[in-house]
């Protein structure tokens, strides 16, 4: 559990470094801290995991895998942030510190074994994010984002907490193991309705966090208003963690009563897919398109929960990894384009293919991956999701998902069309070395996973 300790102490160190104006050392210290945390997390892989801290947490392969992917995504995002935060504000140390605090909550979310830890994790993560969303203090949109996120987030946490309380009321415990045993030992037809009400409230709370329809209304505004890097963090790391938490709770505790909640999640999934995709079609802003597409990706990720089974964890892990890597490329590219053209419309990508072939190429790889084209990681993710859903005979759901995959081609390819097939007078963008490194690595990883998925499917 050294990972959690490192990630929660490094930010305190960072704050002191900020106090003593050691601006240059912030990034290296953050990176070293994250790498150390990653190393310790991976060292736990395939060791026989036992619940620790009086059954509060369980650091099994599932947790190792999700910790690893969230930490790696954070490393990539932090690398992109070089020179980015300095432009927004003079208090740079706080950014790094708050991102890491948020990551602390995320590590708890992927390794909790007790509902209390789930709640603490979600709160630690969310409170940090409220601050990060509003970190451009003088910017109107950023303030709006923070306030909206805070109000909605607090509201949804209320639902979650109420759900946890009801579960506790009926089963008598917060521990996942105890709840599971309680569910297994009781007759499904005579379980207290309070327990079912608890499950529904938890679904509502968690769907808020992952941005699934009809609880998605905060996403576009918050994603658009927040600084782009923070949006990248929210739509990748945070979403991955929320799904890990969702999956662990439902596969550990609520699987025996799946007949009750699967129809609910099924409807949410289909609504999420359609709302996300259809709205993304009509966006003129690339950033807003990514926000809506992230809603539809939440829909695909929900497949694993609807079709809960032995391979669900693997599917979510693969999908979330693919989606995170591709999104980081997309947001990284957006930051560069935005800095040059001042806006984030599709038009501002026009002619990028001629002037910046490298940047256009990696963004193309990311778009293909998000659209789920074979030989990219995104396809493998979708493939696993579809396989899992068909295994549970959700044929109609898969057909609807196919329709959505086709719709998504339109808006993902708009970017490719703009970059390669439309001409515009533009100057060559200066792509900093860090960006080249991160985007290049991410693109290679996307293709490598797409060609040989065995690279990551063995993790869980």
């Amino acid at each position: 559990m050294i990972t959690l300790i490192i990630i929660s102490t490094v930010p305190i160190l960072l704050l002191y470094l900020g106090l003593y104006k050691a601006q240059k050392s912030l990034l290296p210290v953050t990176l070293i801290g994250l790498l150390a945390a990653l190393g310790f997390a991976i060292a736990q892989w395939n060791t026989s995991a036992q619940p620790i801290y009086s059954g509060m947490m369980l650091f099994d392969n599932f947790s190792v895998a999700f910790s690893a992917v969230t930490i790696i995504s954070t490393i990539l995002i932090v690398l992109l942030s070089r020179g980015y935060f300095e432009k927004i504000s003079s208090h740079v140390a706080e950014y790094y510190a708050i991102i890491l605090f948020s990551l602390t909550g995320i590590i708890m979310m992927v390794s909790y074994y007790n509902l209390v830890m789930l709640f603490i994790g979600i709160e630690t993560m969310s409170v940090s994010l409220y601050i990060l969303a509003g970190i451009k203090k003088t910017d109107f949109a950023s303030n709006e984002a923070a306030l909206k996120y805070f109000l909605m987030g607090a509201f949804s946490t209320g639902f979650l907490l109420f759900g946890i309380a009801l579960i506790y009321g009926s089963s008598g415990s917060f521990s996942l193991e105890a709840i599971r045993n309680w569910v297994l030992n009781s007759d499904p037809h005579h379980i207290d309705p309070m327990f079912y009400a608890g499950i529904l409230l938890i679904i509502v709370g968690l769907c808020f966090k992952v941005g699934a329809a009809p609880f998605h209304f905060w996403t576009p505004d918050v994603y658009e208003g927040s600084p782009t890097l923070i949006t990248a963090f929210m739509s990748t790391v945070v979403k991955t963690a929320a799904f890990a938490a969702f999956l662990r709770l439902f596969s550990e505790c609520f699987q025996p009563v799946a007949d009750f909640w699967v129809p609910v999640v099924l409807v949410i999934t289909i609504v999420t897919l359609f709302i996300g995709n259809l709205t993304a079609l009509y966006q003129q802003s690339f950033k807003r398109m990514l926000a809506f597409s992230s809603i539809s990706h939440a829909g695909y990720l929900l497949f694993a929960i609807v079709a809960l089974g032995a391979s669900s964890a693997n599917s979510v892990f693969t999908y979330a990894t693919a989606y995170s890597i591709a999104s980081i490329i997309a947001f990284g590219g957006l930051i560069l384009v935005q800095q040059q053209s001042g806006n984030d419309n599709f038009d501002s990508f026009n002619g990028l293919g001629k002037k910046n072939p490298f940047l256009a190429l990696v963004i193309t790889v990311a778009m293909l991956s998000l659209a789920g084209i074979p030989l990219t990681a995104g396809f493998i993710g979708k493939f696993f999701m579809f396989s899992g859903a068909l295994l549970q005979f959700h044929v109609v759901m898969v057909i609807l998902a196919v329709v959505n995959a086709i719709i998504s081609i339109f808006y993902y390819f708009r970017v490719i069309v703009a970059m390669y097939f439309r001409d515009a007078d533009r100057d060559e963008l200066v792509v900093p070395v860090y960006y080249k490194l991160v985007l290049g690595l991410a693109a290679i990883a996307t293709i490598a996973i797409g060609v040989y998925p065995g690279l990551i499917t063995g993790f869980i």
Partner: protein
Amino acid sequence: MTVSLLIFLPVIAAALVLFFKNSAAKHAALVFSLAELVLAGVFLSKFVPNATTQFMVVVPWIPKFGIYFNAGIDGISMIMVLLSALLVPLIILTTYKHEYKNAGAFYALILFMQAGMLVVFTALDGFLFYVGWEAALIPIYFICSLWGGQNRIKVTIKFFIYTFSGSLIMLVALIYLYLQSPEKTYDLSHFYNLKLSIPQQSLIFWAFFLAFAIKMPLFPFHTWQPDTYTEAPPAGTMMLAGIMLKMGIYGVIRWLIPLAPLGYDRYWDTAIVLSIIGIVYASIIAFRQKDGKRLVAYSSIAHVGLISAGLFAWTYLGAQGAMIQMLSHGINIVGMFFIWDIIGSRLNTREISQLGGIAKVAPKFAIAFLIITLGTIALPLTNGFIGEFLLLSGIFSINILLAIFSGLTMIFGAVYMLRMYKSVMQGETNALTATFKDISGSEVLVLGIICALIIVIGIYPQPILHISDAAVKQLVDQTTMKFNEVKP
């Protein structure tokens, strides 16, 4: 020696060609594609024409999900491999008089597409087949929309969405088959042995049919085709019409009918009727076309309709006819599009009404055009004849009426093709066509090879028929046995 050599050579070639500039990329691409042709020749020489699958490669890919890199060549695949290995160098040669921007990327995409198609033609694993299917689609999308004509953006996205929809449905069907297989595998031979009920097989049939019908294309899924063929750069059109549409036909032979024989047994008539509607419909539209390239595009729908009709009759003769006709159609259509590429790039127009009398100023060109036209309309002693004859006799043995309607392709084809030839080549030269320069250099080479193939295959098709003979016979017998099992 395994088929992976054949598949990965173009991939590596594509990666290398990417770094060449301008004409160096051209030469490099030609050299690599010729190397691929030589390699295919070596495979052919070692190939034993019986019903077995040879040069197999089986490597675990995602073993957890029963996915293997499993590919091999039997008689049917051998023809397809020959087709793509033969046409790609020819197509690269046709571009020798063009200067493309970013030539490295252009030729790399063509080679990569070849690799994708070779995967499709040799895959024995459902997942691999799907990946190859899409891997061939992405490059052609970029070829068409980067180097295409005026309306390329709209047209190519339509093309992409169309084919992508079909293939996703096919993917669902493949996953379904995987889940039905007791061993949880994507292996084709296990799929063949599945005992599925008639309703299940019907669904599988339609899912695959949709993907393949869009690719070929069959009526009513053809609406992407004329626009895409017209807007694509000449080499892209040749890749699409010459090789890529054969992926659909090959899919019917290898996947659709053997996987869902009972579904086929129930719906074969619908499939044949759709094919025949396509033949008549496309022929009638071809009469009215003013643009030569568009006319050829519609003629391709008609000819593919005949192949598909003969195939869905599912007799030994019909299937053999489909095999040889795929090769012939590939050669002829590449020739035809090259003819129009030459006319289009010399005169800057493809309007048939503005042309005429070219034969007087360009005799060599006229001879080549004539031979290719005759091959396309299936005159005896040209390559088109033997294939269409076999296809028609296949349909004839099932139903005379259907055969009569299918036979219309030959008549209609002769009418619109000869009319096109007449108004383009014969008559008096006008101010525009008087400046037409006769073909030279690489053009002579390409057209010479194509004409030679048309005549040689037309006169002596036996060696080619022999390659696929045993494999086709076995496949047809096996599936026919399955219908008979259920019939009282």
